[in-house]
């Protein structure tokens, strides 16, 4: 008999998976405390998006690998790994990689990625021939903010972070708030999403941003004034902390060359709505392109803190690492995978 057996999970495994998270990871993990949220995150039509390794004799779970599917068809989709844990002291040290290998063979995804990998695991992905890297973290300070309560800046140098936009074309575009499913659908259908990596289906975006049970997202469409055509959609999330608020750009779909116009519009929105600052994480976007916006790359500054953890709040810079089996032309944001996942169950969350 094999020491372990790997298979795709079924709905009946839900309790066992949650119990494994509780005993082998974190007793107060949000998936342990909020089972509905676990279902929201991992249940698809007819599928519980986990692979599990069971002990050959006891049948207890000894390893799990969760994933998020970006479309309704795995074979032609992007798959993001989300939640990967194997018990320690195992008779097979390579069980974690064997879980991943099983997922690849079973789902046969066109592209495979993970945003939020542990830095010390990058060796595994490199060994498997994947690309790894750290996301860039950009920020924009509200020109009217006098005292920073969430970010940290050396006071004497605040001015060096403030710059005007070099863009002269954003006035040719409008930023329209999308209110609900019909608005999002209409905007999405006009987008050119054919060559986007990862490819995000309308169904994925609807579930991820409209049906999220805990977070509320502000969704805007960037439209050409002359044609009213939607060229990009952006997903924003307001975070309230320390009696002030910040705006986080969580996701973007559309023509990446239009992101500069979009960011210029959003920075105006930040100024007008009294956000302390806005920030976003990304990977794959040409740094030169973003230099035409008023945003700054955190990597270019020392002694500046743009927090990423708010549940609980930690005033500290956080690097986010990723891997992908793509070599180029991919664009990742914080909303990809499970990096924008709540950490505190409903009712206890002040954000």
């Amino acid at each position: 008999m094999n020491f372990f057996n790997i298979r795709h999970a079924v709905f009946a495994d839900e309790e066992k998976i949650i119990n494994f998270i509780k005993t082998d990871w974190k007793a107060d993990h949000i998936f342990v405390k909020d089972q509905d949220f676990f279902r929201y995150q991992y249940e698809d039509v007819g599928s519980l998006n986990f692979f599990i390794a069971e002990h050959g004799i006891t049948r207890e779970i000894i390893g799990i690998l969760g994933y998020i599917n970006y479309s309704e068809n795995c074979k032609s989709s992007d798959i993001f790994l989300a939640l990967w844990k194997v018990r320690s002291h195992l008779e097979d040290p390579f069980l974690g990689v064997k879980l991943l290998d099983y997922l690849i063979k079973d789902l046969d995804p066109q592209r495979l990625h993970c945003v939020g990998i542990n830095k010390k695991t990058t060796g595994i992905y490199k060994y498997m021939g994947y690309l790894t890297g750290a996301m860039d973290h950009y920020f924009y300070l509200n020109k009217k903010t006098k005292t920073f309560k969430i970010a940290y800046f050396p006071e004497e140098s605040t001015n060096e972070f403030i710059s005007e936009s070099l863009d002269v074309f954003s006035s040719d575009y409008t930023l329209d708030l999308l209110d609900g499913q019909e608005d999002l659908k209409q905007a999405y259908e006009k987008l050119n999403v054919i060559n986007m990596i990862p490819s995000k289906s309308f169904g994925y975006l609807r579930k991820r941003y409209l049906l999220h049970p805990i977070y509320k997202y502000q969704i805007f469409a960037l439209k050409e004034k002359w044609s009213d055509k939607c060229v990009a959609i952006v997903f924003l999330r307001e975070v309230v902390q320390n009696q002030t608020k910040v705006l986080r750009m969580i996701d973007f779909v559309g023509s990446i060359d239009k992101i500069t116009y979009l960011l210029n519009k959003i920075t105006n929105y930040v100024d007008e709505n009294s956000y302390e600052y806005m920030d976003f994480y990304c990977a794959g976007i040409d740094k030169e392109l973003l230099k035409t916006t008023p945003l700054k790359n955190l990597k270019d500054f020392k002694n500046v803190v743009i927090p990423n953890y708010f549940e609980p709040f930690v005033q500290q810079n956080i690097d986010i690492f990723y891997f992908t089996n793509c070599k180029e032309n991919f664009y990742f944001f914080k909303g990809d995978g499970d990096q924008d996942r709540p950490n505190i169950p409903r009712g206890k969350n002040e954000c």
Partner: protein
Amino acid sequence: MISIVQEIFRDVFDNEELIITKETKSAELKDWDSVAHIDILIALENEFSLKFSIEEAYNIKSVKDILDLLEKKKLNKL
């Protein structure tokens, strides 16, 4: 050869007092997981100027498996 392997294990597990024997199995070392496994393999590849296939990496579950594989690969090189 086991003394070289032991040095590699001490580096990977960041434990200068770690003692391994031919009988040491992965289940006996708390941190011998996939990450450590890859680190061990890469260090062995560099030390002995050889390459492990994924299948070979899959089948290693103890220090004995490592020593046997190194011996086999050394013989194949001759």
